């Protein structure tokens, strides 16, 4: 190879690399469409070590948020679970805790996400199907029966009615004798990404934002160990976005919450340390790792330099990760175990604080216990058998990874500028900006798959005709009936006058923007007012949101 010596990367490329043809057909860009060079070297990658990377636990946190990372403590293995009524999910929670899971994560059913009680006409056929049905404090008590809340941290994937579910959780603590100030966990509460991607909304954006800020303010005072918001890119990615869009839109949402809290008069260091994040782990291995590293660097930079946060804990981005549901296939579903393992590895190499691994049967139905156990075992193998936990940010300094980290960061800042020009996140939502960008990216990817430029094993290559049926979880339709009877029995036995008084106060306070709604919601929860009734009261004051559909 003497001819190339001394001519660097360009010489290598011209004389050696280009001497042989590349494979044709499949694209060499990332799954999101970021172009890749065949080789990265010091000739085409520049890194200013101290400024751009630094050290774990130190600004700008590119290499990790804690000084010791997984040598100090492994990530929390937190499997998302919920189906049927509170009783079935309580059993699944106990099963997961018995098998070594270290935190709980609650999936609510569609009616709960949309603020309808189980006996609402819109709930028909949906109760307990994709998560657990929770209508009242009574249901929440059943959900955590036999699980002392001072011994677990609980994550709740709930957004529009987040304040109500947080209040139910706090009341379970009260009844168990655990002070509210000792409760630990995360409430998703990220309403902006609902308008952008997940589409489980109730109220228009402005009153929704007010409710989010009410929760952040109340938690800072009353529930200091609770993360009141988990700013989520997961659903943005599942809706078909690219990695850069996931990164940019999520951080833009995060900054919008910071702006809203500052506008309320809160000091940034009072609430920022409790903001947390939630990202997707998709299949393009290096792009995902780069995404997490870029996210930490951008957040730290802006929180310090733009928002003037002084507490280093306000600069550091902690995040949960879930492997990509969208990457799972219904064809040859066992292959999903392999996809999930690779995605989970990317999350760990990207320094996640907690992780959910999807089960291999989830393109078909909610997972069986067998499938969930294998998903949890995937994390345990990564943690204990692969050795990737022994060194912090082990891929840091890879020319390729550092290039991709900077490239995703650059694309994110480009999006921030476009969003600013549209007048901010809420204005951009109303113009369908995010929705169009995501639909565009999702269609581009689908077209690439259908042209065979992207291979999906078992779907457009290596198909198998004789696929055998997989045993899947069936939700008993009788559970819907059972839950409807539960909520109706509760309505019959509670103190009707107390319910009326609590709802009247909630409506009254909702009409006054300067009142924090958490106290009236807590009062209503204690009086056995249902989640749907509280949401209805607020619908009456604030109205509801409707999206103009675009495709």
């Amino acid at each position: 190879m003497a001819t190339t010596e001394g001519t660097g990367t360009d010489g290598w490329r011209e004389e050696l690399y280009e001497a042989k043809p590349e494979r044709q057909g499949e694209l060499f860009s990332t799954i999101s469409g970021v172009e890749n060079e065949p080789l990265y070297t010091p000739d085409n990658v520049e890194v200013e070590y101290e400024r751009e990377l630094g050290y774990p636990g130190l600004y700008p946190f590119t290499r990790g948020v804690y000084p010791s990372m997984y040598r100090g403590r492994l990530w929390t293995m937190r499997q998302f679970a919920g189906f049927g009524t509170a009783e079935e999910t309580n059993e699944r929670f106990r099963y997961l805790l018995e098998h070594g899971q270290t935190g709980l994560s609650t999936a609510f059913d569609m009616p709960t996400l949309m603020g309808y009680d189980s006996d609402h006409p819109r709930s028909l056929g949906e109760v307990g199907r994709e998560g657990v049905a929770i209508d009242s404090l009574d249901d929440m008590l059943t959900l955590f029966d036999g699980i002392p809340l001072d011994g677990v941290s609980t994550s709740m994937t709930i957004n529009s009615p987040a304040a109500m579910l947080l209040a139910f959780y706090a009341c379970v603590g009260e009844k168990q004798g655990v002070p509210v100030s000792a409760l630990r966990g995360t409430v998703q509460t990220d309403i902006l990404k609902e308008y952008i991607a997940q589409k489980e909304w109730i109220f228009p954006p402005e009153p929704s934002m007010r409710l989010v800020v009410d929760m952040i303010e109340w938690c800072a005072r009353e529930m200091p160990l609770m993360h009141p918001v988990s700013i989520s890119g997961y659903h943005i990615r599942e809706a078909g976005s690219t990695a850069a869009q996931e990164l940019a839109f999520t951080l833009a949402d995060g900054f919008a919450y910071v702006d809203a809290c500052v506008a309320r008069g809160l000091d940034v260091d009072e609430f920022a340390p409790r903001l947390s994040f939630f990202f997707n782990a998709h299949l393009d291995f290096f792009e995902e790792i780069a995404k997490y590293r870029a996210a930490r660097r951008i957040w730290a930079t802006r929180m310090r330099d733009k928002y003037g946060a002084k507490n280093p804990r306000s600069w550091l981005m902690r995040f949960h990760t879930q492997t990509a549901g969208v990457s799972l296939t219904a064809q040859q579903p066992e292959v999903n175990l392999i996809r999930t393992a690779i995605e989970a590895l990317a999350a760990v190499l990207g320094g996640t604080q907690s992780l959910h691994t999807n089960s291999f049967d989830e393109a078909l139905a909610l997972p069986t216990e067998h499938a969930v156990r294998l998903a949890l075992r995937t994390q345990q193998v990564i943690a204990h058998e692969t050795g990737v936990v022994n060194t912090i940010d082990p891929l840091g300094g890879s020319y390729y990874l550092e290039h991709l980290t900077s490239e995703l960061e650059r694309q994110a800042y480009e999006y921030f500028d476009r969003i600013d020009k549209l007048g901010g996140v809420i204005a951009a939502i109303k113009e369908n900006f995010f929705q169009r960008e995501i639909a565009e990216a999702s269609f581009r990817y689908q077209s690439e798959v259908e042209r065979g430029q992207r291979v999906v094993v078992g779907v457009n290559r290596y198909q198998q005709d004789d696929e055998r049926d997989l045993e899947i979880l069936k939700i008993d339709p009788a559970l819907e009936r059972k839950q409807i009877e539960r909520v109706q029995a509760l309505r019959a036995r509670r103190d009707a006058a107390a319910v009326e008084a609590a709802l009247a106060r909630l409506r009254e306070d909702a009409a006054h923007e300067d009142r924090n709604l958490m106290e009236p919601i807590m009062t209503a929860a204690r009086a056995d007012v249902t989640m749907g009734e509280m949401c209805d009261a607020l619908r009456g004051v604030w109205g509801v949101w409707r999206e103009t559909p675009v495709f």
Partner: protein
Amino acid sequence: MPGGKIRVVVAKPGLDGHDRGAKIIARALRDAGMEVIYTGLHQTPEQIVETAIQEDADAVGISILSGAHMTLVPRIIELLRENGAEDVLVVVGGTVPQDDADELKKLGVAEVFGPGAATGDIVDFLRGAVPA
């Protein structure tokens, strides 16, 4: 409608917000030369049937990932029948287990497309199934 474009209502019943598939299908059908009306999210069976009738649709493509397909799809078929619109072709896409898909076909659904279905196959199916 002889010689005319195929008119398709792409509908999202149920409370789930998973609209990636519905939007991809809507766009693929439009690109294939069909007239596409996308209802948007969270539609009731009544709203969907009303749209199908008002738009004089040849077909309704129902995208559902909420697990409520066995409640909502039969209701849509029933309402189409009650309104004398049983000639509208009903196609379903989403996470539908095989047993349920078989049951839905017995009730009158023309085809159920699961995860990973190619948009080209859906276009071809509609072209073949909608009378020219």
